[in-house]
């Protein structure tokens, strides 16, 4: 009797979680089901009457389409390089600004600023103001050293996109690592210094192990966002020259909203979903561990 009355009392509060659950369920299931359905259809927005079931033909089309494999390679290169740059430089810079020095607060503000710049602005500022081969800032520096200015987006399109995206995401890594370093045991470090440990030894045996988990978090979270990079490519190279900077999201966009091929775009979209989920499985496991690790605290 008491059990049923308790349930009746508790139930309404549990219902407070339902709107969020239902909304997200709809947001995930409905479009995803439609994507799966469309991916088996011949469906072009220009000829809406002609849609028909074609089985796996859209996937076959995508998998034999040379641009598709280029876009997968570009996606992997983009995500991989930006991750490597942000983690390596993120760790080095965080260690550099961790110890107190005059103006520490200001320097940290300067360092994290790019993260708050919207992607379209970041991309256009880099393309026009910095990387323009004639009057960009980098061209001026190159000439000052007697070198020929690099025509960034024409000659090194993917590298240019990687640099812009890395600039946007390095602050995220710094933000996380600086926060993590603050929770490091200072006394342990000081004791090591007293014992004559060199900076490298401290970094190798104290700092890096301490940063292990934050590094994993940065890699996972960034991977999710980097698999979706779109605006930076949209405003700088539009996927080109050729398909040199076309990644999977951009290819799906061109199929869907430029060629109006809904079927092919949906097939490509599902490939992107699979790619993201491979990364997601690891992230969920990681976050799930931290949830269990501290779940003893509440109630």
């Amino acid at each position, binding site marked *: 009797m008491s059990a049923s009355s308790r349930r009746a009392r508790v139930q309404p509060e549990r219902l407070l979680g339902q709107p969020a659950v239902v909304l997200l369920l709809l947001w995930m299931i409905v479009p995803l089901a439609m994507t799966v359905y469309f991916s088996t259809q011949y469906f072009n927005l220009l000829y809406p009457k002609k849609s028909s079931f074609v089985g796996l033909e859209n996937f076959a089309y995508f998998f034999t389409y040379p641009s598709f494999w280029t876009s997968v390679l570009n996606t992997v290169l983009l995500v991989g390089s930006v991750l490597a740059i942000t983690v390596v430089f993120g760790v080095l810079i965080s260690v550099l600004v961790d110890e107190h020095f005059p103006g520490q607060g200001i320097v940290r503000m300067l360092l994290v600023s790019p993260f708050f710049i919207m992607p379209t602005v970041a991309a256009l500022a880099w393309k026009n103001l910095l990387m323009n081969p004639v009057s960009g800032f980098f061209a*001026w520096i190159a000439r000052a050293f007697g070198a020929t200015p690099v025509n960034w987006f024409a000659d090194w399109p993917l590298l240019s996109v990687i640099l812009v995206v890395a600039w946007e995401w390095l602050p995220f890594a710094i933000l996380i690592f600086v926060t993590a370093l603050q929770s490091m045991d200072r006394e342990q470090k000081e004791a090591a210094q007293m014992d004559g440990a060199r900076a490298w030894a401290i970094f190798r045996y104290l700092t890096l192990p301490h940063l292990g988990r934050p590094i994993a978090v940065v890699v996972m979270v960034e991977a999710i966002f980097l698999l979706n990079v779109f605006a930076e490519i949209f405003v700088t190279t539009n996927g080109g020259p050729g398909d040199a900077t076309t990644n999977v999201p951009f290819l799906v966009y061109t199929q869907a909203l430029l060629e109006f091929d809904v079927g092919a775009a949906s097939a490509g979209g599902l490939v992107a979903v699979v790619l993201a989920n491979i990364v997601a499985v690891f992230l969920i496991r990681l976050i799930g561990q931290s949830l269990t690790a501290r779940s003893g605290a509440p109630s």
Partner: protein
Amino acid sequence: MSPTSSQKPSSTRRTRRTRRQLARTLRALAAWAVGLAMFFPIAWMLLTSFKTELEAFSTPPRFAFEPTLENYRQILERANYLHYAFNSIVTAGGATLLGMLVAVPAAYAFAFHPTARTRSTLLWMLSTKMLPGVGVLVPIYLLARDTNLLDSRTALILVFTLVNLPIMVWMIYTYFRDVPADIVEAAKMDGAGTWETLRDVLLPVCRGGLASTALLCLILSWNESFWSLNLTTSHAAPLSALVASFSSPEGLFWAKLSAVSTLACAPILVLGWLSQRQLVRGLTFGAVK
């Protein structure tokens, strides 16, 4: 201090101290150099926004010039900046408000009335964040088109809310979970209902956390570019789309591009500076503190 160092002559100790001093100075200089280098593109953009178009395009680049507000004047008049700024404010603000209305009750239920399924529900919510936009671009585009919501602020508000909802629920959940259960129990004992507990106990205690959650959602929605570029054309287009429209007339309007970019980024940059510490929690789903 180890005994050997105290036995050494004072001159060695002094050189060691000066060497450490030098190392510290070099370190500070290096930190400043890196900070300024990272910030340089933003600073350069800000500087360019006060130049004339001719100065903006000049080689070598001009560092000394007479600052002009002409670009800002023209942007405000001609590019219809205020229309786009209004769209940004309405969509980002609306998504934040709606998101908080849904996320706070959900986080409350998960934190204080967990069931056996709460943990997996939370992880599942996080997993929806992993759904790439392109995976659902086509259906969302078609749904928006068929409901006449294409190029509407309503569609953007809904999409931004749904995209950010998992992060918001998680972030508020981590704040609620840190509230000692005793306080909530005590309120219950005093006869406070759910609404009273939420309003009189939790909201005041977690004010800072809720504010930074709202701020994070505002920042993410304001800067969101994938959906705003694909779901809007002109009527509902926010600032991120206005800036993108400058990508076609290449190189000719650098000063104006810089002015509009500065206007689009400045408010969010300031908010970001103010809340950087708290944002870490939301951005890592509480996995790094």
